[in-house]
């Protein structure tokens, strides 16, 4: 089977998007977590920022990441005509 150039480009775009979203995931989880003690003194919505991020902020960002990925990939599928046609 021969992949066309547009297929390869689609996959590169997908990898790029996946990489960016994973980087955000990593920063939100591990970098923010690593500096949790330093973020304690910052207050956000009445919470210490570190507590807020781990109890709520990170979760909301995860939901947004997954939602954005689904939305963006739908568009990408159509753009590169690899979407499922009979649905």
């Amino acid at each position: 089977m021969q992949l066309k150039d547009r297929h390869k480009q689609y996959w590169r775009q997908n990898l790029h998007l996946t990489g960016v979203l994973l980087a955000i995931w990593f920063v939100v989880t591990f970098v923010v977590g690593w500096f949790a003690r330093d973020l304690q003194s910052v207050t956000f919505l009445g919470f210490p920022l570190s507590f807020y991020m781990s109890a709520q902020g990170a979760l909301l960002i995860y939901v947004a990441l997954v939602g954005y990925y689904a939305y963006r990939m739908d568009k990408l599928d159509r753009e590169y005509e690899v979407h499922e046609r009979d649905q």
Partner: protein
Amino acid sequence: MAAPGQSRFVSQLKRYYALYTGGFIGFVVLLSILEQMGVPNKMLGYIFLGVTVLLYAGIGILSRTSDVAEYYVAGRRVPAFFNGMAVGADWMSAASFIGLAGTLYLSGYDGLAFVLGWTGGFVLVALLLAPYLRKFGQYTIPDFLGARYGGNIPRTIGVLAAILCSFTYVIAQIYGVGLITSRFTGLDFGTGVFVGLGSILVCSFLGGMRAVTWTQVAQYVILILAYMIPVIWLSVKHTGNPIPQIAYGYVLEKVTAREQVLNDPSTPEGAREAEVRSIFRQREKTVRDHLKALDAEGESYLASEKARLVKTVADLQSRHDTDPKVLAAANRAVADFPADAATARKKWRREAEADREKSGPVMAHAEPFAGPDEATRDNKRKNFMALVLCLMVGTAALPHILMRFYTTTSVREARHSVFWSLFFISLLYLTAPALAVLAKYDVYTLLVGSSFSELPSWVSAWASVDKTLMNVTDINHDGIVQLAEVTIGGDLIVLATPEIAGLPYVITALVAAGGLAAALSTADGLMLTISNSLSHDVYYKMIDPKAPTGRRLFIAKALLLGVAVFAAYITSLKPGHILFLVGAAFSLAASAFFPALALGIFWKRANKTGAVLGMLGGLFTCMFYMYITYPFFGVNAPLWWDIDPISAGIFGILVGFVGVIAGSLLTAAPGKDLQNLVDQVRYPSLDSDFKPKDY
């Protein structure tokens, strides 16, 4: 599948489940009317659990099927939204429903590792696995390993690993089922296990994945209502705001202020806390002295101590004015006295540890990685990160979750369904930290400082049921409750929330039904994973590939029955700690599956040798570390880089990746057909698409 059919199906489902949710709320209202009319609590508990279990069985009977695609993957027509709910119920186990808020109550910020791990893992599922597995479109996770790496060896390792981690996890769930049914109906633990199991079986036995899916959606509705209602009530009680997730920032501030007062000996309350703590410090010292003497003198010390206690009883008995309570306590001390040195050492060490915990200052709820010195804090931070990573990668590797993404209609739907899954799961995980803080506020302000003669009713009720869940003792005999005098078991938080919030008993029964729904739905998914691995991967793919449909399903169902009975038998032996089992399941799955699955999709060069090496290496590293470090196995070797045994997966994942990469690079690249398969999986639709042969 034509679009109009599917959209009619979706709107039908929406109508059914809307009716169902309305009907369920009506049922709760009806029961609360019955409660007002004086129906006893025990009766209400029976009705509640009985009706919900019958309901699940009913859905199972309605969804019975003898079609292979229906049995294994619910006909691949589950809409994203409903698959999200089913994943939610499949995902949230007894540990999430009952245990999580308690863990957060007891360990504050550090407990949030579970919240992060059990949600953030879905980002990995969404980005790295779900859409590709859906495109692959077969029946099980070992299917993918078998097809991608070629041959039966990767498949077999996949089957073994799937069974190992699912079985470990299912034991924890059945254990939860037994606990809940026995606590709320008064049946004994064993009977509780078999009643719960009956309903799991009716459901998955008749309809496989199809029945499990539609039952899980129903169970999600019950469990989320059961979790939210009491917390919303508690939030209104303390803040006047019905959205606990927003309101608890303000409550957390007050909890933090209370912690400071209770830790400050210059305030009257702080002084009383300090007094109780010093009593505990004294007790700890006494116990440690006993231990020291035991080490020095051995059995003879034990005998002389026992003789001393017996003499105390005799002295008390000879006096006329002895308080009967004092006499009873002295008698108990004799009866409980350890029989030999080993028991004594164990018992006293445990007591010393408990006293030591009580003699320290109140832990700050919002402070991350609290510790007396920099080394302790760094160590806690490192373990927090390791645990989060293990739970996340484990989430993205547990076969019973990944399998659910085979059931959607398309790749597009699979991506959307991860979104809905995470959305529905987050509802509970955003609420649990709020519940922990609200409950803590209640304990710190209403219970602490109250008088022992007028304890809040939920405290005395739970203290009389189970001392490990709730125990208050007037240590310094001042008649007033100090925080250090209160011992709370983690599971109490969720179970007692309705009473803390001042809700009628019916809501307590609802919470029990929610906990049961959480445990049953997870157990359903796990048992199906185990029996499908055996019937599909082992029997159909390896033993008899020409088996007719009827026989395949017969084998699948017979195996399911066998697995269920075996799991119930193991559970009835009470093999240990729920958290241990859950942690082990995540680490095992993460080490065995994740590297081979993710690299199988993103790295064409990954080949069979690499997969075999990575999976076996990861699995064995993880098992080996658990074996040498979990106290349960009794080896107690030193930890590697101070990583706690619960995060054993971190070494397994690392070895897994190294194994797949090294093994693949050292041997020839996979053949053209396997590389083509990778391309097929990467694109939702290609002109040259293969047609899965069983579809």
